[in-house]
């Protein structure tokens, strides 16, 4: 049984969790708006089922309630790091394809990218709070020869991937709110928030 946290650490974590919940909620609203604008601007079918796209982290998880707090945070962090890279690529493709044609969408995309980066940093804060080592970024190990270049997609595949990225990001924001609420819950015995390892 891990030792219970000090009251100040629990307070700090609950504060981080509640701020994270607000951040995720705002991010979700912005992502949903962005997705609508993106689908319209790219001439896509909002109702079309988009197959899972390689490299886009799936929000759906089995036995969600059995996850420990650390697992929740680590999975969230990995996902938002992936979304950060995917959104950055989308932004670059957007500039390349449209230039100044739709600056509004570009700005909205950049704004969501900023929020995703902020949220990833927030998750790292939570992990630091528990003196958990922050996992290195996926590219760190391949620093010398750099991350493998993403496969060259056709324009239509780029559009579909963009739709999949935004859809899945909206789902992740919902999951993150649930995860953070789970982490913020006080432990039934001591009334203090449990250490990350314990919280189911």
């Amino acid at each position, binding site marked *: 049984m891990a030792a219970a946290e000090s009251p100040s650490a629990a307070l700090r974590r609950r504060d981080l969790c509640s701020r994270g919940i607000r951040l995720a909620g705002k991010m979700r609203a912005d992502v949903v708006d962005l997705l609508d604008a993106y689908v319209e601007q790219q001439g896509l079918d909002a109702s079309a089922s988009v197959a899972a796209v390689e490299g886009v982290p799936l929000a759906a998880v089995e036995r969600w309630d059995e996850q420990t707090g650390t697992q929740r945070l680590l999975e969230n962090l990995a996902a938002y790091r992936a979304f950060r890279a995917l959104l950055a690529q989308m932004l670059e493709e957007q500039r390349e394809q449209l*230039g100044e044609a739709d600056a509004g969408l570009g700005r909205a995309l950049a704004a969501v990218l900023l929020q995703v980066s902020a949220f990833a940093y927030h998750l790292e804060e939570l992990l630091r709070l528990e003196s958990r080592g922050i996992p290195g970024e996926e590219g760190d190990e391949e620093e010398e020869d750099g991350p493998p270049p993403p496969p060259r997609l056709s324009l239509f595949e780029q559009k579909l991937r963009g739709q999949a990225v935004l859809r899945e990001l909206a789902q992740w924001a919902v999951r993150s709110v649930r995860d953070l609420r789970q982490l913020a819950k006080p432990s039934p015995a001591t009334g203090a928030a449990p250490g990350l390892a314990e919280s189911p």
Partner: protein
Amino acid sequence: PQNLKCVTHNLHKMLCTWDVSSRGRHGQTDFCYTTNDLTPQVCFKTKERRVEIPIPESSITVTIKSSGAAFATREFVIHQKDISFIPITPHILSLMPDFPTSTLNLKWSDNGSVFPYGLDALWQIQILRKEAMEVVTQVTYYSKLTHEDAILSWSWTSDMPLECTSHYVKIRCYINATQFAGPKDWSDWSPEKVIPGKDTEPGGSGVFPLDRVVPVGSDLVFCCVHGEDEHIKNMTYGSKSYTIMQLSRRSHAIRVLNASVSNASGTNVVCTLENALEGSVVFVGYAPDIPQNLSCETPNFLVIKCTWKPGKPSGLYGGRRTKYSLFERTSGKNVSCEVNERESPRDHVCGFPVLPDQKIYDFILDVSNPIGQAQSSLLVDITQRVHPKAPEKLTVTGNNSTSIQLRWFINGSFAETRLLCQIEISSSHSERKLHNVSIPGRKSSTYTAQLNALRPDTKYQLRVRCSAADHFWRWSDWSRGLEQTTSEAP
């Protein structure tokens, strides 16, 4: 021996064949011929029922003696008019596809060395397509033989992407040998050359053409190549479904007529299969218009500012947008122009450096996008196109009851130019007056002027603008205004 027939493929030699009764089929044959200009008879033995002999000027007498079981002799007189002329079957040297433009490039040899100089040749080229090898088009191509082997080439642009299904090409020829008396006919068709479609490739799939740029008004064919066991549900262009044509078991297509301009992110062409979604994007836009009202001037003899009216927007953005470059013929210098189609859709601007010791500029404005290009040109003497910036830092440097001294600054290198500046002065007592002063220009300098005969104790509003004194072109904008009151009379 019977039914003697002779065919020539090259107007030099002819191939004669004949029939024999079944009993004499395996025996030896004595074949003799003589032309009627008293040359000695030529004979030889053969087991074949075909021989190649020279073409006679007018006629030839042939004697065929078959030995063995069915001993028989028969004599034939063959006139040139009895000999058929069927050119040698042509062979395709190369068939090269250019997928981005859906063009087939064909090369073949005309075997001209075999024929006399100057004969007219006709070539029929047949393009076939689909699994059923339907004839798509047949074209006749004309050439003149030059008694040398010439390589002929011809191109054909398909109405559908070459990836959609296999395209086959074959050719045949007809030589108009007017001097030859015998009947003339087309050669056999050459063996087909094929450019295989993606629907023949294992795992080949997708919508084609992929990410192409086409002019507004184009008639387009899009195809969806899929697995053999996959069933196509529908194909849409933009938001509209189209009737599907089958090209092969693995390839279906739609035809879109008179395509209209697409939006910035292109028009999606989506192929919905039972378990998959394939798609492509097409960008439908306009070739650039010829730039209108190209005009160039210099504000400061450091840079030349060219402006023009671009005409209607191309509808193409990002990497496909219309690009502009300014080329100056005398110096050979080329400048690419950064133009923001959205911020200034009606007037475009481009800067070109003033070059040392060069007054006359021979500009060509090149405009291009993936659909087309255009040009405008302008010959200009920049000393006659001076349009200074508005004077800055207008200040009063001195005044008394009847005069005011002014000073202002103009950015630019006007050392070799005389400036004409105009000072506007007005007050509540008097109408607006304009005072012109001509000043030798200098390099990024201040200039002064004095206004006299003013009324004492009077508030005046002043501002200044300048232009080139020699070869007036345009006034600068007015400087910011200034208020100054003359002192009271002594």
